[in-house]
């Protein structure tokens, strides 16, 4: 079913200053049956060059979803900017199902008005039409918002383009020293911001549900401690510094609690930390390793990794009033290594790291059928994280022994790779929908 489209490098070049792609995205496997759509370059009435190629950003977003096949720019038979200028017969000849046209007006003071219309080509009618006001630094973001609107209008599912990814980069120098960086970028790899640098390991970034803060593990004191950092103000707050492990923090869906791993009581156990009261509640009690908690979307259960059965497997425990309720249930039985669960926002899928023949792949456990479906085919895939709409999974993999990020659709059909210029990139974490 998969049609290999090798090495179609989408060069996401930007004309605006201060917006560069540190991560470039390569579609490694396109999807047969993706819906043909044409995004016509938006009209621009300013004096200078257009501040952003809005249409290029939208095209790249929609293509990455694997559900759409945007027409190449040179194949556009005409360049209408308004529904009244469209000759639908031409577009039907090209088998284009949908057409997006629009224009950008400069309002002065770096303010812009973006108008666009999404058209059904066969019916010759408008599906959606919006007018968005944007400031210059927010133009890329406005383009992602338009992608989200188009995606929702055509699939019924909210888009997750106007979101952020956090990740850790590591550079190793000939002296043997390493530089660890915690970075945040748009979901397409643009506008990377380094929010923290350290000579000691940084691990396990995880987003607050409001997309404003990250929780992570830092070894800056020489041992692991958990910190929360505001990505705008960069303010840092130490959260836990217990004896032993302080590891794998994940924010609860209501934003009020963290699930995390501590070994202060002897061996690694899952705890819940109430952020307001600082009260700590122990959830697991087992002599094995219990770690890598992830919340179910209703906040009433945790899934986690435990080797209590002899090998790492995923387990689920119900939680009420920060207490474990009932029996711990084992969820995975295929193979002898299933770990680091991430749960989709609808709770239907659990992404995990699955070992097969000594290789580590990203797999998805369907919570209805309890079947595991392996999505990737390299040997060191890890750290899966769902997009806010549960349709894509970003994860860490290797390319020529270098750590890179990649993404795969939850059905395993669309694959892409996010490569950086230097160093290792690892531990991606995809934010929820932006609320601000």
């Amino acid at each position, binding site marked *: 079913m998969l049609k290999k489209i090798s090495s179609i490098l989408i060069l996401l070049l930007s004309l605006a200053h201060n917006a560069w792609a540190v991560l470039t995205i390569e579609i490694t496997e396109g999807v047969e049956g993706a819906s043909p759509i044409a995004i016509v370059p938006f009209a621009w009435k300013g004096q200078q060059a257009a501040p952003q190629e809005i249409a290029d950003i939208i095209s790249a977003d929609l293509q990455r979803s694997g559900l759409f096949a945007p027409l190449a720019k040179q194949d556009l038979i005409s360049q209408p900017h308004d529904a009244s200028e469209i000759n639908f017969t031409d577009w039907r000849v090209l088998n284009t199902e949908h057409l997006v046209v629009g224009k950008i007006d400069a309002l002065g003071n770096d303010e812009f008005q973006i108008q666009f219309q999404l058209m059904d080509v066969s019916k010759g009618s408008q599906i959606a039409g919006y007018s968005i006001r944007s400031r210059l630094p927010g133009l890329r973001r406005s383009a992602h918002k338009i992608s989200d609107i188009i995606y929702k209008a055509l699939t019924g599912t909210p888009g997750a383009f106007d979101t952020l990814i956090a990740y850790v980069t590591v550079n190793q120098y000939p002296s043997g020293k390493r530089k660890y960086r915690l970075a945040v970028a748009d979901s397409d790899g643009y506008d990377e911001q380094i929010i923290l640098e350290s000579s000691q390991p940084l691990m396990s970034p995880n987003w607050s549900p409001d997309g404003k803060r990250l929780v992570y593990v830092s070894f800056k004191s020489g041992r692991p401690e958990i910190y929360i950092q505001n990505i705008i103000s960069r303010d840092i707050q130490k959260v836990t510094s217990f004896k032993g492990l302080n590891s794998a923090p994940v924010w609860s869906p209501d934003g009020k609690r963290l699930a995390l791993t501590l070994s202060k009581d002897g*061996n*690694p156990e899952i705890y819940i930390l109430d952020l307001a009261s600082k009260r700590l509640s122990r959830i697991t009690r087992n002599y094995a390793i219990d770690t890598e908690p992830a919340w179910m979307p209703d906040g009433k259960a945790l899934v986690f990794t435990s080797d209590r059965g002899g090998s790492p497997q995923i387990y689920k425990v119900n939680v009420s009033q920060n207490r474990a309720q009932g029996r711990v249930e084992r969820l995975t039985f295929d193979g002898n290594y299933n770990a*680091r669960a991430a749960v989709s926002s609808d709770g239907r899928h659990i992404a995990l790291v699955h070992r097969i023949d000594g290789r580590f792949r990203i797999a998805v456990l369907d919570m209805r059928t309890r079947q595991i479906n392996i999505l990737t085919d390299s040997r060191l895939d*890890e750290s899966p994280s769902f997009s806010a709409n549960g349709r894509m999974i970003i994860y860490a993999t290797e390319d020529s022994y270098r750590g890179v990020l990649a993404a795969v659709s939850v059905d395993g059909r669309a694959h892409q790779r996010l490569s950086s210029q230097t160093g290792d990139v690892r*531990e991606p974490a995809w934010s929820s929908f932006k609320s601000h």
Partner: protein
Amino acid sequence: MKWTKTLPKYLLGLVLLVGLAGCTAPKKPTDEQAQSRSADVQGAYDIKSLDDPNSPLSRRVIYFDLDSATISEEDRELIAIHAGFLASHPDVSAVLEGHADERGTREYNIALGERRAKAIKQLMSVQGVGQNQAQVISFGEERPVALEHNEEGWRLNRRVEILYSGY
């Protein structure tokens, strides 16, 4: 909950006794070194031995199998030497730094590194090393010594390093 904490220590103590018996038993005297090592356990090393590259105390890395925190027979002898030294030098402290190879998930690996370091700490504590004398820290797979992505690199990275404070 108490037994879960004390049982493994008890078990490890047993295993250690069996291990030491194996070293000193007249039935297996083939290894002269083993005999001298077991003598060393009684505290033959002074503080200067830490700087002596020919002393067994200069061997400070213990290696592990994949997914395992099991200590080999040979390494038990080495750990016994370090434990003997620490027990006879209560003013000296050490950090037991646990590590894993790059395979498997990062958070599980940091727990695995801790399990390896704690296995060594428990062996040491039954030989009289003070609870605060040996401190466990795990870096999981975050601080590899070998950068090769192959069996040999992985073998070298699955380790616990015994780091003497100030040495």
